[in-house]
């Protein structure tokens, strides 16, 4: 018995440091990869960053000039995607959590289709968007087509996170509001949605992040015209498409590709940071703290 005990201690003495090394090593590797990427972008692209770069039009197929129209197109595409996906996503999540019985047949069908959709490669979304929005609905290569395609693509993330955050709201509040004779709409509006809001916002920003980084779904839908769009029916080039085009198709476009990628990464960090901040501070504080 004593022997076994001592053996366990020895194992502990060997395994513990190994475990420590492994977990720290993995974490450092992940952080290192990210830092290297950002460092590389900064090294090659930082010198080109300026207000002029952000606001002026690309010249010479993007080799020189800036990314003004591309930023505008990107934001418009994102705006269309969010405007279409948020109401749809929220409504579906509310249906799944508040109206359907848990494990109902229809609910499981919706869940299954969402999980399949979430796994569909973005190029397939691009081709679907092209066939459906651009050709069938006649929207052509436009910011509208691109935004709607992105909306389809981020819907699964949006619905799943909204569903999870609504399910995390304690049933005590549902029963409590029902016991006060409140309608489901009132309960949702005053209690359930606000209580779930940190999760909802985090999910939304995750979706926006995914949409902003998207390339394949946009090439066939919003196109790659790099002029300033004058309406949602114009073609517009998203930032990620611009980076792809500069680095793959334009000889000598690497410098501006780096600078554009830096802008994109910066925006993504900004969005994720906002999501984290909102989830941790503002929304929780409003509900719990004195």
């Amino acid at each position: 018995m004593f022997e076994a005990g001592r053996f366990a201690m020895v194992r502990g003495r060997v395994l513990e440091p190994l475990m420590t090394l492994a977990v720290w090593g993995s974490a450092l590797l992940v952080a290192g990869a990210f830092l290297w990427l950002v460092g590389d972008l900064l090294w090659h692209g930082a010198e080109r960053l300026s207000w002029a770069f952000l606001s002026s039009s690309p010249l010479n197929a993007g080799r020189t000039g800036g990314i003004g129209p591309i930023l505008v197109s990107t934001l418009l595409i994102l705006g269309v995607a969010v405007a279409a996906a948020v109401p749809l996503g929220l409504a579906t999540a509310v249906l799944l959590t508040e109206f359907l019985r848990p494990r109902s047949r229809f609910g499981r069908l919706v869940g299954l289709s969402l999980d399949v959709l979430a796994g569909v490669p973005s190029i397939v979304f691009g081709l679907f968007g092209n066939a459906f929005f651009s050709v069938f609905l006649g929207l052509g290569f436009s910011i509208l087509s691109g935004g709607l395609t992105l909306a389809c693509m981020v819907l699964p993330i949006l619905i799943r996170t909204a569903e999870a955050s609504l399910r995390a709201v304690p049933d005590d509040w549902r029963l409590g509001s029902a016991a006060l004779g409140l309608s489901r709409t009132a309960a949702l509006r005053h209690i359930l949605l606000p209580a779930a809001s940190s999760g909802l916002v985090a999910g939304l920003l995750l979706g926006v992040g995914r949409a902003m980084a998207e390339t394949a779904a946009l090439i066939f839908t919003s196109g790659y015209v790099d002029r300033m769009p004058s309406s949602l029916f114009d073609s517009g080039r998203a930032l990620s498409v611009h980076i792809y085009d500069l680095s793959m198709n334009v000889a000598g476009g690497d410098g501006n590709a780096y600078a554009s990628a830096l802008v994109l990464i910066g925006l993504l960090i900004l969005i994720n940071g906002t999501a984290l901040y909102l989830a941790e501070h503002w929304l929780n504080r409003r509900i719990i703290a004195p």
Partner: protein
Amino acid sequence: MTQTLDRHSGCSPSIDAGTYTVGPLQSGPPCCVPEPLIRVTNLSVSYGDHPALKDVTLDIYKGCITALIGPSGCGKTSFLSALNRLTDMIPGCRVEGGIRIGGQDILAPRLDVSALRREVGMIFQKPNPFPLPIRRNIEMPLREHGMKKRADLDETLERVLTDVGLWAEVKDRLDKPALALSGGQQQRLCIARALALAPSVLLMDEPCSALDPIASGIVEDMIAQLRGRYTVVIVTHNLAQAKRIANYAAFFWLRERGGTLVEFGHCRQIFEAPAHDLTAAYVSGMRG
């Protein structure tokens, strides 16, 4: 075996009227002339294939406190939830039999459930104030039910918070989150929230069991003061509490497949002269 007091049984001349109410508070209508407000006949509640409550017949008297006692799982909470149709919220839950409140059949399929729940308030075991400021916890349901005037809202807010003894404690922080209150304060806020809708019946599902003894005592005193103004049905595992505050007691027990009512009567009778052996064993602490 179920027993039901017929409406004037409490007035049998051989028993002194004053002995029936238990506890120091005697406000409210004299319980020796009981007027049934809620008449439950052959009520059964089941969840899917699992019966929770079988064949309960029972009258609940106006202005009195009726305690439901018995071991866990014998259908007391199901009984309570049937009275305000909260059973509707539970998938697969079936309610059979009859419940009439003030003469109205509340199991009727076309009943305005929202109106019923305003009339029959409910307090839960775990305090469940909404994640809103204290003021909005009370005002939001009022607004939803059509009270819009600032003066009315303010008057109701102060009145119900005073009724539960919370006004002095929170009047300077009405806009602070309700979840920052202590457990006992939260439970009293929930009672105030229910009172604000001017119900005639209050259902309470072990309202003190999640609270420490001091907070529990405060809430209990408050419930006792509701006697006479409201008809209270309270589920409690605390027999001493039932003895202190209730006018009537109903003893439930788990029979083969599903809970059932064993004995119903005046609180003092249930505790001091139970008619049924199971009741006698339970209230004396031998069983359950």
